[in-house]
């Protein structure tokens, strides 16, 4: 029914072993090149190279074909449209651009695990760490992964309930309960995070420690601050009750 298996398969091809930043630079470079260059020979060469790179990562056949099918349809329509207008070189150039970049992007997707890609993105976000500490990004990513099946479950349950009442064609009977249940779930999750002190002190922990209060002005804290605990990915099943 709902498949969350991406394109990635653990293998030992050269592209699997290449570092993520190299692959992203390659994608950026090839994208700029294909857009800047409109020479037919170069276009065919780059397209062939990208398709070979995609093949070299030994991707799962069915999922790859599904991923490429959309692009190939678009490229075919574009080609037909340009041929119709009589612009043969431009047709080749545009179709080549579309297919080569899609093939390269699929090659990267099929050779990079999600963890590696998320690590790379977290590294890219390092300059933002005063606003967005890396731990917070980690917490948000793992909570999102946890809430995808939860949101899908809420939506599915709302549809089953609507069908039981004979309202399965009534969009309001599905969307109103599922949306408000989703917000309620989020607020409960927020309370659970707050109770555990997760991500509450993301910035405070990085900041310089507060100077000790002096004199009679010092006000003793009424309540102890919640304990700072390490964010454990995959932990939020405790907080969904």
């Amino acid at each position, binding site marked *: 029914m709902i*498949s969350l298996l*991406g*394109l990635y398969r653990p293998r030992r091809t050269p592209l699997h072993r290449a570092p993520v930043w190299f692959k992203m630079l390659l*994608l950026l470079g090839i994208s700029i090149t294909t857009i800047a260059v409109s020479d037919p020979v170069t276009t065919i060469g780059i397209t062939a190279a990208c398709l070979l790179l995609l093949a070299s990562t030994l991707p799962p056949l069915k999922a790859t074909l599904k*991923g490429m099918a*959309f692009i190939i349809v*678009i490229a075919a329509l*574009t080609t037909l*449209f340009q041929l119709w*207008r009589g*612009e043969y070189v*431009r047709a080749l150039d*545009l179709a080549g651009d579309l297919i080569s970049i899609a093939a390269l*992007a*699929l090659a*990267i*997707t099929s050779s990079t695990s*999600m963890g590696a*890609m*998320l690590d790379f*993105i977290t590294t890219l976000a390092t300059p933002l760490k005063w*606003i*967005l500490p890396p731990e917070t990004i980690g917490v*948000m*990513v793992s*909570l*999102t*992964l*946890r*809430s*995808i*099946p*939860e*949101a*899908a479950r809420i*939506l*599915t349950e709302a*549809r089953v309930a609507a069908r039981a009442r004979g309202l*399965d*064609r009534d*969009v*309001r009977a599905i*969307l*109103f309960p599922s*949306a408000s249940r*989703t*917000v309620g779930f*989020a*607020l409960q*999750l*927020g*309370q*659970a*995070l*707050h109770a555990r002190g*997760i*991500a509450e*002190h*993301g*910035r405070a922990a990085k900041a310089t420690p507060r100077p000790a209060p002096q004199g009679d002005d010092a006000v003793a804290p009424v309540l102890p601050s919640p304990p700072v605990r390490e964010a454990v990915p995959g932990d939020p099943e405790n907080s969904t009750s």
Partner: protein
Amino acid sequence: MAQHRGLAGQSIALIAVFAGLIAASTLVPEITLVGGVPLTLQTFAIVLSGLVLGAWRALAAVTLYLILGFAGLPIFANGAAGLAVLTGPTGGYLIGFMLAAVVLGASASALARAGILARRGVAAAALIGVGLLSLPAVYMVGVPWLAWRTGMTIMPVGCSGLTDPDCVSAVTVGVIPFLVGDLIKVVLAGLVAATIHRAYPGLLGSARAVVAASCDGAEDKAAAATA
């Protein structure tokens, strides 16, 4: 804690759950409307995030959804995944989603500060009106991107008939077929967002405005929320 408010637990949970909702909305089978018209929920979920969360949290939720998709989770429309979607001809729509989230979130926060969201009847109309801003926001980025990647012109120029090549443009291919569905989704999202703001006041803006507005109406807020 005031300066950490943007990252407090509640915000983080809302961001993560709405990113999960956007992702899940592409995974569940589409809803069949009366007449057998299928309705996918992705645009609905994006518009709803903007209207419910406010600018920054909605931007974070949409960005988180996009990042997970780029990292390889098959959560884009039609089960697509990875960077190929961004670099493809429809990648502009994804960037447009981020713009739409910010625009809608900022406008919805302004409505909340003005106390409009606490008034029944007005709230839904105002939220639908704000939600309509999402169409230009998404298409403003998506259509030129589509035109650029497929070599079409943006607007049909000198169009004379169905067989005229000049009629094929990014607007006729990428906007007009989806316009009615998008309008339906925006209206639904506005109605749902109004319900959510009634059930959970204080999600946006200050709770004081909510209380003040509801006191003006001399109406029990809890009764209104559950009515």
